[in-house]
């Protein structure tokens, strides 16, 4: 009564499954509906982008567009050191990042191709952004442990052939999402991105008047607030049913120069999640964040 006991228990559970009529037809209808929805979103999205105001906020306050860059792309990653390498290994769990099917993908690079970009401490835990020339991984660790979830690869949104800083505004968001904490029902809600030289400080604002100071380092930043997993039926005491991440809405970010003055504000519009891996999918939320001009912001007066 060992392995057999577990196998038999699963078999008995599986025996409760009832046949589902018309499964193939239902799947085909669902696939068709999703395809149609994506096509509709493409049309709507294109219209929205076409009329979106292009309020350019340049670094020095004057309108300025990144000029064409010739020669070798300037992808400047932070220098490598032993401590950084240890964090990278832990965050990547010693191998290549995983794709959307949670499988290791060698084409995303090996740990040696990645650097610790920036990180912040939350008690005993660390939330970090590690990245390479093609993309990055968000990571949460407890103590010196490994990433608490598989290292999900996120490509750098926007163009990469002109380097990682070819985006137009002084700061840009590359990721909005959650990473686990040690506690099953808690999360870190994270915003991560890049800043151009001269930006020394970034704050990120969430709904309900919450603002967090980002860790800015090497031209990258990461900020977080407490997230949580809540029952979807809204009953905090009933954990027998389904649950989902509590919705945390990102309202915007503010970038500050060395003199402490705000040089740029970005209106994030209450976005709750952004995964650059979905940028090829027409339904991507925060579609503007997929571009080099992820900007609906303005220069503060």
């Amino acid at each position, binding site marked *: 009564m060992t*392995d057999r006991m*577990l196998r038999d228990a699963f078999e008995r559970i599986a025996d409760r499954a009832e046949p589902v009529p018309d499964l*193939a037809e*239902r799947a085909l209808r669902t*696939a068709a509906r999703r395809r149609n929805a994506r096509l509709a979103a493409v049309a709507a999205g294109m219209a929205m982008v076409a009329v979106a105001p292009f309020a350019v906020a340049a670094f020095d306050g004057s309108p300025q567009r990144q000029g064409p860059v010739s020669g070798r792309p300037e992808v400047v990653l932070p220098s490598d050191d032993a401590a950084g390498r240890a964090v990278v290994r832990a965050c990547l769990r010693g191998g290549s990042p995983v794709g959307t099917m*949670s499988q290791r993908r060698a084409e995303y690079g090996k740990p040696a191709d990645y650097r610790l970009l920036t990180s912040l401490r939350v008690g005993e835990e660390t939330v970090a952004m590690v990245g390479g020339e093609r993309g990055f991984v968000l990571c949460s660790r407890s103590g010196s442990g490994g990433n608490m979830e*598989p290292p999900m690869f996120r490509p750098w949104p926007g163009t990469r052939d002109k380097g990682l800083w070819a985006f137009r505004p002084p700061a840009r968001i590359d990721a909005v999402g959650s990473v686990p904490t040690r506690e099953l029902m808690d999360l870190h809600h994270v915003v991560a991105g890049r800043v151009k030289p001269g930006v020394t400080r970034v704050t990120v604002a969430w709904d309900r008047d919450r603002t967090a100071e980002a860790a800015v380092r090497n031209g990258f930043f990461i900020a977080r607030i407490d997230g949580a997993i809540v029952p979807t039926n809204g009953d905090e005491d009933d*954990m027998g049913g389904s*649950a989902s991440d509590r919705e945390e809405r990102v309202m915007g970010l503010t970038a500050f120069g060395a003199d402490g003055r705000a040089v740029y504000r970005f209106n994030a519009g209450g976005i709750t999640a952004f995964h650059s891996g979905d940028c090829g999918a027409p339904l991507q939320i925060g579609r503007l964040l997929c571009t080099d001009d992820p900007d609906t912001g303005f220069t503060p007066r």
Partner: protein
Amino acid sequence: MNAEARESFGRFVEARSASLMRLAYVLAGDQHAAEDLLQTVLARTAARWRHVRDSPEAYVRRALYNEQVNRWRRRGREASVAAPPERAVGDRSDEVELRLALERALLALPPRKRAVLVLRYFEDLPEGQVAEILGCSVGTVRSQTHKAIARLREIVPALEVRLETAEGTR
């Protein structure tokens, strides 16, 4: 999808739906969630039929695991805490009660831990293959298995003796 592709997709689903539904049920824990899980994966399979039609079963089974674990990891942590058994089982001669308690305890495990046990004990796959499917290391598979069994013992203390060798024999 053209008529020929629809037909071959339909034939595949008709032939394999019972087996796939059983797997979806042990992963999701109830009929409704299992139907939703399987239909989500089959809709994705239909959209990618041109690429997966040569070995659709492997694709669907892998997608079922990943979809269920991802739902938990990214959006859901669904059904992470189901109702525990009404009472601990103390009488080892009461095999029926023990079996029921074990089933309830398995369904009370978080989906990722349950998925590891399903892969190892229901699908009877070696650790390396489990790690490959779940996108983690063999060490993680072992630790998840250990934790899952520890959790089963916690929920149903009477299982302690019965499951001792389960950990050691795999």
